[in-house]
């Protein structure tokens, strides 16, 4: 296929672009296979906007005849010099992006406008993954031979010497046949051999048998994660599964299973082949049911929240009740308090925990990640956090492609979209706000990740799991976002200037009064958020300056 088939009009002159935080500009619009490019031709300014088409969530077009469009120009807030063209008519395209930005293009010529709109609609949601931009992106400062990714399970295991007594690295999934959504290597108890794992995989949804995700060095307790057991209506059991879990708590009296569904949901899951670990078969495990919202409900919550944020009615009651109605902050609260519970079991009570919901690829990852941030200082550096995301989200098989296909503005029928990763970033931001010194990265990093997960130049978030990435040759043919974020200039930008390492666990307050809307993301394109960003920028510049001066002037006392 050729992209050019989809581009009937590649260039339009005299287009007016309106975008938040900037005055309107007049210039040339170009559409390429992956980008929308606008360049300002006005004297004294050289505004350029390069927008990844993939970032476009929805467009709205309105075409008007010249006769009725005279009002449009006077409303436009542009100077009256706006020439009313005699030839034909004009149209307006409103572009709503996945990073929540809203742009508007006034395009002269009805046909041009319709062509552009059609191209955007098609090119912004291409299905074929190998045609996506990451496969074409070739920055001059990086080579495809550069290291891809930050770490691997193999490396992780070899670095964690403490593990080697009781845990082993299994490559039972080397060809992805045992569990399609797991990476090739996983960490399991030493006493379970690969045959057992294959049997356990058949007993867990999607083959996601329990694997190690976190080892707490202070007391040797662990967090495991998996998917639900497939007990079904006739309460099937699996000895190997029980043995595997028994091996996890070997030597201690009991462990906890945190199930991210309500008891009722878990029981109902039996009807569709799923289920839960019964007390009789898993006698040394205590099950805690903590309902977390998932899938569609989360996506709808996001849609409602974004709608509330864009409400222009200027009514405080309406805003607060819409905010409440969206339930987003409740989801943030639930995620943080469930993660807090998990961390409490491990750090305070000194017990190992198995976490799962249904599939084990969404809420499970959400709380295991947050719990690690709470307990483990090494996850809180810039590098540590990115490595954590790589291990717990990318390699652990969170289906980014499905979940982030559309964002809050899309009119398309919802399929598998769900802002689980965004919810994670929001929760991390809450932690960051409550512990401004404890995290080594800045809000800017969270914002960048929130954008990249939905549309990116890089291959990191492509595909739904490692198997798909291998098939596509992501490693060989795209660049790695995490590596790019750690280059010196980026590192400056995404580090927290106030960071101070602390060994302590950071327990977030989950009182509703302590949680705030993440304005930096949800109200990012409003002027007042912009001022705050400027203040942050100011502090950051000072720190960089400080670093330079300290290097060049006499040795600074610390």
């Amino acid at each position, binding site marked *: 296929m050729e992209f050019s088939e989809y581009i009937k009009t590649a260039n339009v002159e005299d287009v007016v672009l309106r975008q938040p935080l900037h005055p309107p500009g007049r210039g040339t619009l170009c559409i390429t296979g992956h980008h929308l490019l606008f360049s300002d031709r006005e004297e004294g300014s050289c505004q350029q906007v390069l927008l990844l088409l993939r970032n476009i969530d929805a467009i709205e077009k309105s075409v008007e005849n010249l006769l009725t469009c005279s009002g449009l120009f006077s409303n436009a807030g542009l100077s009256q010099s706006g020439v009313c063209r005699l030839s034909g008519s004009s149209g307006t395209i409103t572009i709503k992006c996945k990073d929540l930005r809203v742009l508007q293009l006034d395009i002269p010529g009805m046909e041009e406008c319709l062509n552009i709109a059609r191209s955007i609609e098609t090119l912004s949601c291409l299905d074929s993954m190998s045609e996506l931009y990451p496969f074409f992106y070739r920055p001059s400062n990086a080579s495809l031979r550069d290291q891809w990714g930050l770490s691997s399970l193999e490396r992780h295991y070899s670095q964690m010497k403490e593990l080697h007594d009781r845990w082993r690295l299994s490559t039972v999934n080397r060809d992805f046949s045992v569990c399609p959504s797991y990476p090739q290597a996983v960490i399991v108890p030493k006493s379970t051999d690969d045959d057992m794992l294959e049997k356990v995989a058949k007993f867990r949804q999607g083959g996601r048998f329990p694997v190690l995700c976190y080892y707490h060095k202070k007391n040797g307790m662990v967090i495991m994660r998996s998917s639900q057991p497939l007990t079904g209506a006739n309460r099937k059991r699996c000895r190997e599964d029980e043995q595997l879990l028994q091996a996890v708590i070997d030597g201690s009296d009991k462990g906890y299973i945190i199930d991210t569904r309500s008891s009722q949901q878990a029981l109902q899951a039996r009807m569709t082949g799923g289920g839960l670990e019964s007390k009789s078969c898993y006698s040394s495990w205590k099950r805690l049911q903590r309902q977390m919202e998932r899938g569609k409900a989360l996506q709808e919550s996001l849609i409602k929240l974004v709608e509330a944020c864009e409400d222009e009615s200027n009514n*405080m009651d309406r805003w607060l009740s819409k905010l409440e109605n969206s339930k987003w902050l409740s989801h943030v609260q639930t995620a943080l308090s469930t993660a807090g519970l998990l961390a409490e079991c491990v750090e305070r009570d000194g017990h190992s925990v198995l976490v799962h919901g249904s599939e084990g690829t969404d809420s499970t990852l959400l709380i295991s990640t947050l719990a690690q941030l709470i307990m483990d200082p090494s996850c809180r550096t810039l590098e540590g956090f990115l490595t954590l995301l790589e291990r717990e989200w990318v390699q652990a098989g969170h289906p980014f492609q499905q979940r982030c296909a559309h964002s809050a503005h899309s009119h398309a029928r919802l399929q598998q979209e769900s802002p689980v990763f965004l919810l994670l970033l929001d929760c991390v931001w809450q932690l960051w706000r409550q512990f401004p*010194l404890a995290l080594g990265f800045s809000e800017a990093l969270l914002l960048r990740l929130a954008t990249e997960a939905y549309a990116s130049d890089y291959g990191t978030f492509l595909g739904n799991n490692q198997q798909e990435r291998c098939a596509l040759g992501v490693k060989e043919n795209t660049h790695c976002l995490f590596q790019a974020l750690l280059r010196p200039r980026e590192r400056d930008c995404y580090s927290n200037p106030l960071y101070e390492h602390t060994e302590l666990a950071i327990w977030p307050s989950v009182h509703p009064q302590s949680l705030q809307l993440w304005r930096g993301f949800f109200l990012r394109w409003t002027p007042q958020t912009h001022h*705050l960003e400027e203040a942050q920028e100011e502090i950051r510049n000072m720190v960089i300056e400080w670093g330079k001066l300290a290097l060049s002037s006499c040795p600074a006392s610390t």
Partner: protein
Amino acid sequence: MEFAELIKTPRVDGVVLHRPFMPTVEGTLCLTGHHLILSSRQDNTEELWLLHSNIDCIEKRFVGSLGTIIVKCKDLRVIQLDIPGMEECLNIANSIEALSTLDILSLMYPFFYRPMFEVIEDGWKSFLPLDAFKDLETMTDEWRLSEVNKDFIVCPSYPPLVAVPKDIDDDTLRKVASFRHGGRFPVLSYYHKKNGMVMMRSGQPLTGTNGRRCKEDEKLINATLRPGKRGYIIDTRTINVAQQAKARGGGIESEANYPQWRRIHKAVERSNVLQESLIKLVEACNDQSHSMDRWLSKLEASNWQTHVKEILTTACLAAQCIDRGASVLVHGTEGADSTLQVTSLAQIILDPACRTIRGFQSLVEREWLQAGHPFQQRCAQSAYSNSKPRQEAPVFLLFLDCVWQILRQFPCSFEFSESFLVLVFEHSYASQFGTFLGNSTAERAKLSLPEKTVSLWSWVNRPQELERLTNPLYEANSLVIWPSVAPQSLLLWEGVFLRWNRSSKCLDEAYEEMVHIIEYNKELQNKVNSLRRQLAQLETEDPLLQTP
């Protein structure tokens, strides 16, 4: 009266104090005429010194012979005292109740407080109307300082000196005063240097049902208009409320009699409604339930944020009129509450000087204290009090909240930090200083406050305090700053309302770290500058080093 009469048990041993996010302290509780003191007599634990006047209400409970007193303060803190012995506990509770509600002003603590610091500058003399007028005279000669109110007869709530249009004599002023609520005739509140526009404030006109008019009033406010220009009257009441006021002798400026003025009505809530809103808000903030929905709907039901938005919107409107070249008269009913919120906030938006520490003090002096906001009545009780509200209303707190919203939106444009606003809030409700005592300049003069008490500003304007209250990010910004009033942009002021419900340790540490970085940055920059100077000097001294 002797305080001793009210104190049956002056001290109890073995009292345990519980405070939010602090370790419990066991020690001796002492009651004095003005303070509740708990001291553990150990070196490293902090003592508690609480002014009785800071106590809003107490609750007592008994379990066996152990009594517990929960003390709820006007600064919204809640502390708990476990007192062994039922009788002792009852005595202490009775004493606190009596001492915290003393309403004889001359017995208040500021009259007994002697400063332990060196007064560098007497705050009572820092912001005299005469000095403010001297500044005005450098910009315009269209105004004069009138002494018509020197004995507080023409308007009991005005200061002895007020700025009025030059052509208006004192007789006219007396006539106008009889036509305005509480004698509050229109006076100058702000002169906008950039374009010579002015903001005035007053009480409502007393037109009554039969549409009384007062030629002198019309003459006075018209005297502030440039030829051919129109002005705006911003009435902080809705048109309905304003019309209804006629039945009680009040009213509005009719279009017929004031053809050069356009009236705009804005709904800014007042007194009772605001007090109830505060009570609901604080209750929501202290709610221990873990439900997000409950919190958000309680926050909404309190309406507090709506009030913040309305006030800011009205202030923006006033500022906009002035900035675009029209003079403004602001009033509501009495002209001592919502009027002052609007005029003072408009100045913060328009005038960079008000965004400095000293300028803000001057603004509070001019637009609140001298302008006759009845602090004594408004701040008698805060959000916890069970007694029937009388004249209480968090008008000033709302003003501070609005300032905080602007400060948050323009973090580099204010010389002071949030802690300064919190400090001013605390002292407006309970203080060792005399600044916020009384309801008007007349009352303050009668009590001889400047002679008998210390001013809050005397304490603030010392280097060590100023350092603590300065915003490290400040960069003087001479522009008008327009705050966003979209509901999404306004936040709950956590620094006051959630101050005691969260551990601020981490936030404080981060703040200190930031201050440290900025200080160090300045230091290094100075070093670089001085090295550059040295280099330049060497270059001029040594011609060989000069580049050809």
